[in-house]
């Protein structure tokens, strides 16, 4: 690009910003038409201005997003997700609805109880007999013990360090399940399982799988539920191995075929 002097830059800036008085503007525009080298200078300055604005805008966006990002992840400053929770219903009742409501096959109360038995809400145990809680995980457990599921979810969200804690994820998954938010329950259980897989650990793994299978059922994701129940059934060491009956598998198979 050719160098142009300061006065020229001022003049062009004034024109490009629309600040030039009318008379001067007319002269300026005449020159633009008849003087090609002048036109080139104006065009170059226009490009430089565009470049400056583009870079400034980029930096401004980076800065805005970075600020929000920082605030978002700052402890106790995360937005609390409050979903419009569905009416609370027991998982057993939902499963009964799925099985009976669709009229796939005749099911007796005792048949259904094979599934419903495992669908009771998870009952957390008090970790400390003294009742004193010292870690975030214990604190969350204590909140869950009170059956305060919304608070349990809020607590989880407000404490960033819990987000890769399998037990916390398991508890928050159950809280969502209790409040009828099956999608988030599934996400939480899946995350608990993946973290275990990643860390080659088994913290709350069996429990997460068991409740995830039921959450899938609640979401009518029969194939996924079937696969997970099958996995549990195939592992005698699994905590819930005995809970998966052959008849339950048959029911799922029929549901799956009908689906």
């Amino acid at each position, binding site marked *: *690009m050719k*160098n142009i002097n*300061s006065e020229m*830059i*001022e003049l062009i800036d004034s024109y490009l*910003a629309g600040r030039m008085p009318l008379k001067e503007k007319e002269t300026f525009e005449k020159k633009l038409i008849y003087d090609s080298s002048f036109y080139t200078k104006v065009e*170059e300055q*226009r*490009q*430089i*201005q*565009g*470049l*400056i*604005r*583009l*870079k*400034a*805008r*980029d*930096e*401004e*966006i*980076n800065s*805005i*997003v*970075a600020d*929000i*990002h920082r605030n*978002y*992840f700052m402890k106790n*400053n*995360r*937005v*609390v*997700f*409050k979903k419009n929770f569905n009416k609370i219903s027991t998982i057993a009742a939902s499963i009964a609805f799925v099985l009976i409501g669709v009229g796939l096959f005749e099911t007796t109360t005792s048949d259904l109880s094979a599934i419903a038995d495992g669908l009771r809400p998870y009952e957390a145990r008090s970790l400390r007999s003294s009742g004193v809680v010292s870690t975030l995980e214990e604190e969350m457990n204590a909140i869950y013990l009170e059956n305060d599921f919304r608070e349990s979810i809020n607590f989880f969200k407000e404490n*960033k360090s819990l*987000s*890769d804690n399998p037990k916390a994820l398991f508890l928050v998954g159950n809280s969502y399940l209790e409040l009828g938010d099956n999608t*988030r329950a599934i*996400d939480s259980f*899946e*995350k608990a399982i*993946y*973290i275990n897989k*990643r860390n080659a650990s088994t913290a709350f793994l069996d429990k997460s799988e068991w409740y995830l299978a039921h959450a899938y059922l609640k979401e009518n994701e029969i194939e996924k539920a079937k696969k997970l129940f099958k996995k549990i059934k195939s592992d005698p060491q699994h905590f819930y191995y005995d809970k998966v009956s052959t008849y339950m598998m048959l029911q799922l198979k029929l549901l799956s075929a009908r689906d």
Partner: protein
Amino acid sequence: MKKKKIHLSDLQVVKAIQSGDKLDESIWYLYDRYYEELELFLFKNGGTKQDAEDVFQEGITRFIKVVLSGKFRFEATIKTYLFTAWVNHWGYLNKKRGKDKERDENYYYGNLQSSKTVLKDIEESEREELTLKFFDNIGDKCKDVLYAFYYQGLSYKEMISRFPGYSDEQVLRNKKHACIKKLKSLVKENNKAKNWLKKLLLKTV
């Protein structure tokens, strides 16, 4: 202070970004709406929490730049744009780390393969930003002066009160011209920037 939950359609988000009106709220909304999904996606693909945060921030930033450049035309949903940007950036990070991890095909990636236009927009935006890096060599003082004048539209008088280091308008004017000169010489040295500048400015400025 906790933010109140808001519900925004794709159109509302895009309009808010384009107009600058309620931009912060829109970005908060995108964090609320998609962060957990992205975190899960990355956990499934061997990422850490820190990875999720970094990738999320990059994706949001990229999306906003795409919208502001006028390339977001509702041919795909915001979610598709964001996940394309995230998957792309995650791939880049893995490559940088010498890893080539398998992606969870059952998750979002399969769905994203049809979004070639989206990917193109995102890659173009990344290239633009990379090309603009040369601008940083101009120095912070020049940046301050040029941004104030050309981006924020401040007058010399207003700039004097903002930058007390400049004794009068003429000193500031001289500084601005020196910075312009420096910037032009940087463009001249950088062929890639020169060509790109012409092409880009024809479209966006």
